């Protein structure tokens, strides 16, 4: 790729970031509702742990706090990871709904620029949202982070972003191929990720087939790595296996996602699926 072509794609990349920023700005009321919903859900999980003591499930306050932190890490991470996943996965659905899909597909930019532009914005927005919710959690539940290794936790989070984008790209071809049912299929994928990735419980409690699914979910390794870093004060070297695994998954999933998306786009164009709004 020449320098001028790179500049062209970089300009378009900025265009996708600006567009997403403007969309979020214009739909701010919706966003407030979603932030509130996510906050309420996360707090509910936190209070669920607090309530265990009252219903006689756990009487050791130290262990109770560990359980609470375990669950809150899961809830907070899930709010971030699922938000990024959904934003990427709904890239096509959103434009179908707005009626702009053909104009974006017709523009002289690479699909990678399009999808990675939307993904990048969702990462920044998701991090901002997760930080806000995290701050409320720390204040309300008096979270003790003295055993937390924030640096290795942060690295796990960064590494997790790559396979998540790849997974989102793979999922966003569902609405491309099935204008009527694609959205629901996206939600089903999201629900499956929640079930098998050990968000609120160790994957080991699942039946064998679900454990196998959990093994291929990047979220499983993200949650494992984060819990090791934040609950057990594991350093970078100790969390390196999780980080390496996540980066490896990203190296496979992003190019695979873009390639398969390209095939799906060709199929949609052959069958005349782009113009239908479902």
């Amino acid at each position: 790729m020449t320098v001028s072509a790179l500049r062209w794609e970089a300009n378009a990349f900025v265009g996708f970031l600006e567009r997403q920023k403007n969309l979020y700005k214009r739909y701010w009321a919706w966003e407030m509702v979603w932030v509130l919903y996510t906050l309420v859900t996360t707090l509910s999980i936190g209070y669920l742990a607090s309530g265990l003591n009252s219903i006689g499930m756990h009487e050791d306050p130290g262990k109770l706090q560990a359980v609470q932190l375990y669950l809150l890490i899961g809830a907070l991470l899930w709010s971030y990871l699922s938000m990024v996943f959904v934003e990427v996965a709904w890239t096509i659905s959103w434009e179908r709904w707005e009626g702009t899909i053909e104009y974006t597909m017709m523009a002289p930019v690479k699909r990678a620029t399009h999808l990675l532009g939307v993904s990048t914005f969702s990462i920044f927005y998701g991090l901002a949202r997760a930080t806000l919710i995290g701050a409320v959690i720390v204040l309300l539940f008096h979270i003790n982070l003295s055993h937390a290794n924030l640096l290795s936790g942060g690295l796990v989070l960064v590494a997790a972003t790559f396979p998540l984008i790849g997974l989102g790209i793979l999922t966003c071809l569902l609405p491309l191929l099935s204008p009527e049912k694609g959205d629901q299929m996206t939600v089903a994928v999201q629900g499956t990720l929640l079930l098998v990735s050990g968000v609120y419980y160790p994957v080991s409690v699942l039946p064998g087939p679900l454990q196998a699914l959990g093994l291929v979910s990047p979220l499983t390794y993200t949650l494992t790595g984060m819990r090791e870093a934040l609950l057990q004060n594991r350093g970078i070297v100790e969390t390196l296996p999780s980080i390496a695994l996540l980066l490896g998954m990203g190296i496979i999933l992003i190019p695979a996602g873009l390639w398969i998306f390209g095939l799906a786009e060709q199929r949609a164009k052959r069958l005349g699926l782009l113009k239908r709004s479902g």
Partner: protein
Amino acid sequence: MAIQPATQMNSPAIEMRGISKRFRRTGARLPWQKPVSDKVALAALDLTVATGAITGVIGPNGSGKSTLIRILATLTVPDSGTARVFGCDVVEDAAQVRRFINRVSVEAAFFKEMSPWENMLYTARLYGSGGGDTRDRVEKSLHRLGLPLSTLDRPMKQLSRGQQQKVAIARSFLTSPSLLLMDEPTTGLDPRSRRDVQELVGTLRTEHGATVLLSTHDLREAETLCDYVIILERGAVLAEGTPAALRARHELDGVVPSLEDVYLRISGKSLEEDEEEGGEEG
């Protein structure tokens, strides 16, 4: 890298040879049910459009106008045949074709909550601009189209249908296309907006040097605006020529018919009748 000016090329703006496209119809699939035949949108269509002209494609709904435009816009892949835009194949060289074209469709497709400015800045970015002078260019363009500047930062959904269509045309100006594909841009507009849009189409050629392919079922519009007219019926070319030549060819007893009369004589029915028979795919 700017959009490449294609108008200096020697190739015709559009060259289609044997283009066919059919769409699978959903419906009866069970063995005891009557099978539903595919919808033929284009049937071995041959077409050449000269560079710099405004060429009208006339036909009822279901005649293949929109499919023709979607194929040229790289949004639909033909089943067979070749289609070239300024010498570039729409399937093999789709990325290059996209640099030459833009499209104005019957529905002004915008992010409805975003303002005209935000929508146009997005388009400018995708077409290699979006720098400091973009706001000026957008303002001038909208002013030229008779849109008050107060509309620039309001959500698109607050603009009238006519205003939205003008923004759609301004958006296409912004990308300086060598080939502009217009798919029934005046359908559903009030008479004044329709006239404004028709005037703008004329200025596209004179001021921007663009080749325009205008799909319409308004025969008066085609007669007024187009240098050359192609009449499509069931995915095939029924007749073509300049409006004057088509009218002269069907002169009867010294009376030169209108383009509408010509269409009636050739097809044996009115566009309205055909529209009632038209299929899902345009």
